[in-house]
């Protein structure tokens, strides 16, 4: 096994040698951040298990592979608009495609967006809308704290940019489909920036899919700023093949009276690591962070969340649930941080896990760091099996054991799904989870190119 130093050195070489390609086409703002982040990366490196925050996820095997890196946009040989269809019935969305971390060149024009809403590639946004872009880019992600974020900032060239201006309500959800499609093993670096202005409302659905069998490593960073009184929903559906590694770092900053709901559903994937950071930077914010993971085989999922109550009178509510089978391993870390003087904070956190096999492993780490006194904070974590009484109740009513277990598992998962505020999506994910819990692979069944699971 290559040691971590070799991996870090390879990235250093990549950065030095690819510098021209990296800076070419990127705005000054991005290139400046790039230089700074690279210095930070050299100090931090790819996080190892010695790093307390990565205690339960070993990234060395994930990085120890000769990946190809696209430092410029690669044309796609087929029209993805033709072959990719999202089949969620009645789910009418504004759909944009990204391939391998780049904004897809042949995206259809979104005609139904309200006036002033911008949806485009990050590279394009940096040039066309520098005022907005530079006010937000690199302001929320913290490359100094995490080697992966530093690496992303150093290598990122493109991703998705969404801007919702003041007072605009985007009724139709924006659906972002991240496609990994390549004829070679690939390392993708995606950088997203979502800016939701005052009194605006938007819902974003992100679907991750792998289209070819190649080994992928995706190291993505998403920065989101939700301004005063804005309402924002982010749903992430992760459904990749076993050979993929998804590293997602999301940074959300909330201003006064804003309301944010995120729901991360991990259905399938080789190694998934979600870093979810929320900063409640204004009074009376509300944040709901939900997540669910259904893992089997050798899959690994690690949800690392941090909710930072920087201002008084905010509410945060966090709930993650997981069902583990086979040799799957899952980790959950939830950190609620109440800063000094963030009085009247209400913070709840909960993590529940069902273990279905003796080879599965769950490591959970709910944490409270509280430096204010007038707060109500609680957390809970459970690991266990199905309630035998509930099972008996169903059996007594003539439901066979297998079906009864299925019903209970589904009910367990449904608690998270029902938090979704987009009705058709909720129904669809219910169905996907149901098939997934029956041990089948949950494909979006009418899509022309079935995802390679």
């Amino acid at each position, binding site marked *: 096994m290559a040691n971590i130093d070799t991996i870090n050195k390879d990235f250093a070489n990549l950065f030095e040698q690819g510098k021209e390609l990296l800076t070419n086409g990127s705005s000054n703002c991005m290139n400046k951040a790039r230089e700074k982040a690279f210095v930070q990366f050299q100090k931090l490196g790819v996080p190892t298990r010695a790093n*307390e925050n990565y205690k339960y996820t070993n990234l060395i095997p994930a990085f120890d592979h000769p990946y190809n890196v696209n430092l410029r946009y690669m044309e796609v040989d087929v029209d993805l608009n033709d072959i990719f269809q999202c089949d969620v019935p009645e789910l009418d969305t504004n759909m944009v495609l990204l391939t391998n971390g780049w904004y897809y060149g042949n995206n259809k024009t979104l005609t139904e967006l309200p006036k002033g809403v911008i949806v485009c590639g990050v590279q394009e946004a940096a040039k066309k809308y520098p005022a907005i872009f530079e006010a937000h880019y690199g302001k929320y992600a913290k490359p100094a704290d995490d080697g992966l974020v530093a690496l992303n900032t150093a290598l990122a060239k493109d991703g998705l940019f969404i801007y919702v201006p003041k007072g605009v309500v985007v009724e139709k959800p924006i659906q972002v489909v991240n496609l990994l499609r390549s004829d070679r093993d690939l390392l993708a670096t995606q950088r997203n920036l979502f800016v939701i202005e005052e009194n605006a409302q938007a819902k974003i659905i992100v679907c991750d899919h792998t289209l070819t069998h190649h080994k992928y490593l995706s190291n993505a960073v998403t920065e989101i700023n939700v301004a005063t009184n804005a309402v924002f929903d982010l749903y992430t559906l992760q459904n990749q093949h076993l050979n993929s590694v998804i590293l997602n770092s999301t940074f959300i900053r909330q201003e006064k009276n804003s309301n944010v709901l995120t729901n991360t559903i991990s259905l399938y994937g080789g190694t998934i690591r979600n870093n979810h950071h929320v900063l409640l930077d204004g009074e009376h914010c509300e944040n709901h962070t939900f997540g669910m993971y259904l893992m089997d085989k050798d899959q690994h999922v690690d949800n690392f969340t941090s909710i930072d109550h920087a201002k008084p009178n905010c509410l945060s509510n966090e709930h993650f649930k997981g069902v583990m089978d086979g040799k799957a391993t899952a980790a959950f870390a939830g950190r609620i941080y109440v800063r*000094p*003087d963030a*009085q009247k904070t209400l913070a709840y956190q909960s993590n529940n*896990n069902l*273990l*279905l*096999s*003796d*080879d*599965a*492993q*769950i*490591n*959970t*780490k*709910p*944490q*409270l*760091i*509280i*430096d*204010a*006194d*007038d*707060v*109500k*904070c*609680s*957390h*809970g*974590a*459970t*690991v*266990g*099996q199905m309630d035998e009484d509930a099972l008996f109740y169903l059996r007594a009513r003539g439901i066979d054991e297998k079906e009864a277990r299925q019903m209970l598992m589904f009910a367990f998962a449904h608690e998270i799904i029902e938090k979704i505020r987009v009705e058709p999506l909720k129904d669809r994910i219910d169905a996907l989870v149901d098939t997934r819990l029956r041990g089948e692979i949950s494909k979006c069944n009418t899509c022309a190119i079935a995802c390679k699971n």
Partner: protein
Amino acid sequence: MAKEEQDKILDEVTQSDYKYGFVTDIENDDIGKGLSEDVIRMISAKKNEPEFMLEFRLKAYRHWLTMKMPEWAYLKIPPIDYQDIIFYSAPKQKAKLESMDDVDPEIRATFDKLGIPLDEQKLLANVAVDVVMDSSSVKTTFKQALAEKGVIFCSFSDAVQEHPDLIQEYMGTVVPVQDNFFAALNSAVFSDGSFVYIPKGVRCPMELSTYFRINAENTGQFERTLIVCEDDSYVSYLEGCTAPMRDENQLHAAIVEIIVKDNAEVKYSTVQNWYPGNKEGKGGIYNFVTKRGICQGVNSKLMWAQVETGSAVTWKYPSTILKGDGSSSEFYSVAVTNNHQQADTGSKMIHIGNNTKSTIISKGISAGKSSNSYRGLVKVTKNCEGARNFSQCDSLLLGDKCGAHTFPYLEIGNKSAKVEHEATTSKIGEDQIFYCNQRGISTEDAIGLIVNGYAKEVINKMPMEFAVEAQKLLAISLEGSVG
């Protein structure tokens, strides 16, 4: 009720002085500052130890040299200069004493102030005391009554001389020398401690207790306790600590090892009230303790109960390895921090045997500018069937400058395990105080009432004499009128 008034009372309540600060003026026999292989050889030679002990110490020291001080705890500790510490100190008069009259009057006065039942009246209290004054055992009582039952209760150094086979068999089996930085340091330089051996089928007729006291200035006390409980035996062991007021930080790194065999039961209770430093956070004891027990036999039982009110820095995680089928362990803790105290404490439960059970109840109380963290691990190994754990960690905040943190780790590898963890953090509710006020109870008394009620669950688990002292300590830590 007015918030200002409530704050004022809280302030008063949390600003009392350390009541046990005094220095006993006895000549000390120390070996000067610093740590090296020569120092270790000197300690071993002074104590007239057999060869295996010296080897054990040197092995630990060599390993310690390769280690770094752990930094993961939620503590801010200034760097410690290990060459600026005296690693061995013992009161000079070493002759064995038969009766109380022979004990140095100053030492006796010290213990009287502490209220340790050392004199003959303690027979009525049914307590045998092995007093560790700094690093050397001064007097052991009730040895004979215990000897009749076959119970061995003596200082560690005596045990090394009189029962080297037992020491060699059990020392370092629960906490190996490589275990952690402070365990390695202790293994290298430990000066004394207690040894308890309960033979098969014996129910120890009295509660065993030791009183540790750090006395000589600049002396780190490195004591080591070893408890071995054979099949079907039972012992309740009490450990209590107070230390005099000092300006310089003093280092304390202890090891406790407990071995519990088939159907045996051990209760280990601690009251820790070392000097926490003054109100500006100057001075105070650095308390780095490795406490670990192994429930080796089937249906064995180990209970930890602790009240932690002292020390500037506490780093302590009493843990149990549940190896025997059907074994169980409980951990009850009240940790109080005030002024600039820092505590990072909790428990580890490692489930290996089938149908093992564990309970963790931890109550943290933070006041002043202190920081109080719970850190715990519940681990269920892959082949452990039917494990059950319940953990509850509550924090109470008194004041807006203090912190309460919770860092539980749950690592579960077997589907039959049932593990629950819950934690809450809050301050005393205004409605609770209002309720008391309404019934004619002053706010000050109400706070005392609520704090005591909050800690009751833990204090109830302590032996009677200790429970009384524990309540007193809670009161002293948070001021005289509370409690």
